[in-house]
């Protein structure tokens, strides 16, 4: 870990994502959150590690599975929860729901659930920064499924061509809905290698090791900021719950319980605690205080969301 002072914040980001999503899962059966939710429980380290490498003024774009990226970038827990509850106080004023989060105050520019489609938009955002002479970096999150979309390739080609300040962050969780890699991509061909063909610098990493993620992201972000162009990071990780919704779904049989248990052991939070408490890099006390704060935050956000009013009118169709 290149920057041990960052450890508490990495933990905090991961735990916030975990607890917010667990709370969503707990409450979903009340049927008050009336929109699809794609939870990233189990994958928190990618979001936390990568976002922690960004400045507040840097930009992030994401996908259907975006709660982690939104919270990692520092998005408002209240506004997110209210959005999922469909309330006027939501980050998109009820027009978006879980799949369309935004928090401009922290550079979280938006998530959209069409696979692959926010990738070129993120690249364009970086292009815009260059055109305007702004020194920001844009990070684009997506799953390994998105690398099968042609637009991913078009985006990488342009980013390399123009040496844009983009970090492509691919969370490879082995599945697209219930479909394993084997029906979608050639056996034995790593995901990052299709990016590499475009001449972009690529790295593969352990997506559940938040410090490793942070280090990879930090280098990529620094390079981008210094005009060194884009980087593609493939981070291996695993979604614990169902593709969409609050439940576990190993009973469906599309993946083995062994595989699941294997990854369950690689829980990014447990791994963090085991490692850094043992080494003394963080104190149990500190982690407990963080956890307590997050519990309060989450409870507050749920109360805020539940008590907020519903929107009276949909957002108008044209910008004035």
């Amino acid at each position, binding site marked *: 870990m290149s920057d041990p002072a960052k450890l508490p914040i990495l933990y905090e980001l991961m735990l916030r994502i975990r607890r917010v999503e667990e709370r969503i899962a707990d409450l*979903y059966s009340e*049927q008050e959150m*009336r*929109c*699809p*939710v794609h939870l990233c429980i189990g994958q928190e380290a990618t979001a936390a590690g990568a976002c922690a490498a960004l400045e507040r003024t840097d930009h992030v774009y994401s996908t259907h599975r975006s709660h982690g990226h939104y919270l990692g970038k520092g998005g408002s827990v209240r506004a997110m929860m209210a959005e999922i509850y*469909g*309330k006027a106080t*939501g980050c*998109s004023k*009820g*027009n*978006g*729901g*879980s*799949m*369309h989060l935004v928090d401009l105050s922290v550079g979280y520019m938006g998530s*959209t*659930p*069409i*696979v*692959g489609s926010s990738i070129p938009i993120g690249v364009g955002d970086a292009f815009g920064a260059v055109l305007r002479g702004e020194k920001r970096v844009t990070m684009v999150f997506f799953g390994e*499924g*998105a690398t*099968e*979309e*042609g*637009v991913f390739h078009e985006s990488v080609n342009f980013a390399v061509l123009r040496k844009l300040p983009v970090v492509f962050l691919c969370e490879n969780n082995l599945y*697209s*809905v*219930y*479909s394993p890699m084997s*029906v*979608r*991509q050639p056996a034995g061909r790593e995901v990052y290698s299709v990016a590499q063909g475009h001449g972009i610098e690529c790295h593969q990493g352990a997506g559940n090791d938040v410090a490793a993620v942070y280090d990879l992201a930090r280098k990529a972000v620094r390079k981008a900021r210094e005009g060194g162009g884009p980087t593609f990071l493939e981070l291996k990780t695993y979604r614990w719950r169902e593709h*969409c*919704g*609050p439940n576990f779904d190993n009973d*469906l*049989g*599309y993946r083995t319980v062994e595989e699941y248990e294997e990854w369950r052991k690689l829980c990014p939070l447990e791994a963090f605690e085991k490692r850094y408490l043992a080494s003394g890099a963080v104190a149990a006390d500190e982690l407990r205080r963080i956890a307590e704060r997050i519990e309060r935050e989450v409870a507050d956000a749920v109360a805020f969301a539940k008590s907020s009013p*519903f*929107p009276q*009118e*949909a*957002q*108008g*169709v044209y910008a004035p």
Partner: protein
Amino acid sequence: MTRELRFFQALREATEIAMSRDPSVYIMGLGVPDPKGIFGSTLGLREKFGEARVLDMPTSENGMTGVAIGSALAGMRPILTHQRIDFALLSIEQIVNQAAKWHTMFGGLMKVPLVIRMIVGRGWGQGPQHSQSLQAWFAHVPGLKVVMPATPHDAKGLLLASIEDDNPVIFIEHRWLYGMSGPVPEGHYTVPLGIARVAREGRDLTIVSTSYMTLEALRAAERLAEEGIAAEVVDLRTLSPLDEGTVLESVRKTGRLLVTDTGWKTFGIGAEIIARAAEGCLASLRAAPVRVCLPDLPTPTSAALAARFYPRAIHIWKEARNLMGLAGAEGRPFEPPGVPLDVPDPSFVGPF
């Protein structure tokens, strides 16, 4: 013998029959062989027909549409599925420039027997990118056929007819119909493309409907009947080719036209139907025709907003009364009190 089947079961049965009868039929799409089987409509096919003919695919909608087209040129009869019509927007170039035109632009030498199933979402926060209803687009493109069944009976018969058709067919299924039950004959039958269905007869006004809005139209017609107004409901079933004859015949009889569609109003399905009536039987029109369609707005996600966004039976009922020149009654809700408006029936509890 006629049994009751649900809409998704009717789709599955049609696919199974088509695949049994013709070894060149195959089905491909994201999640086709997965445990959910396209909301049940492809379940069991993999077991019966094997991996070669029941396929998952990469998340590459455009490329895989081209692949389907090419395989059709090579003699196969592919069925391609999209769990949301919104995803198919990636493949518009292949559908419109290639599939729709291949037969004509090569002087009739080849054909593209291809069915593309597209599901229209509604409710439970599907939101702006998971609930568009773009039939007007496909119906505007010469060379495509466009089908929108409203009943399990038609789902089966139209899907079989679509698979057996030698042209590219856009087969649009409304997600809220999936759980609906209805009588479905066993075995092979087809409902021919291009023929509308008079779902209910009446002399006072004509309600032309598509897909799920047929159900809402029938509910409205029920109440209108209680009030002494006999609405005729014409379920279009096929948008292209369009059954102008059945529509005009009804309008000539009733003199009043209301069109209700699952898509946006402006430049949508309703416009063409009203234009046909104005062109074809202007003199019969006793009142200005009216459209009950989606407002021209991206779908809002919050249930509170969606409830106001989507037209339902009550809106059809109100407009029908206006058409009849009856003053604006408020009308009691069609739905039992407290029933949420963003789910079709209790069997649908989300999230998908």
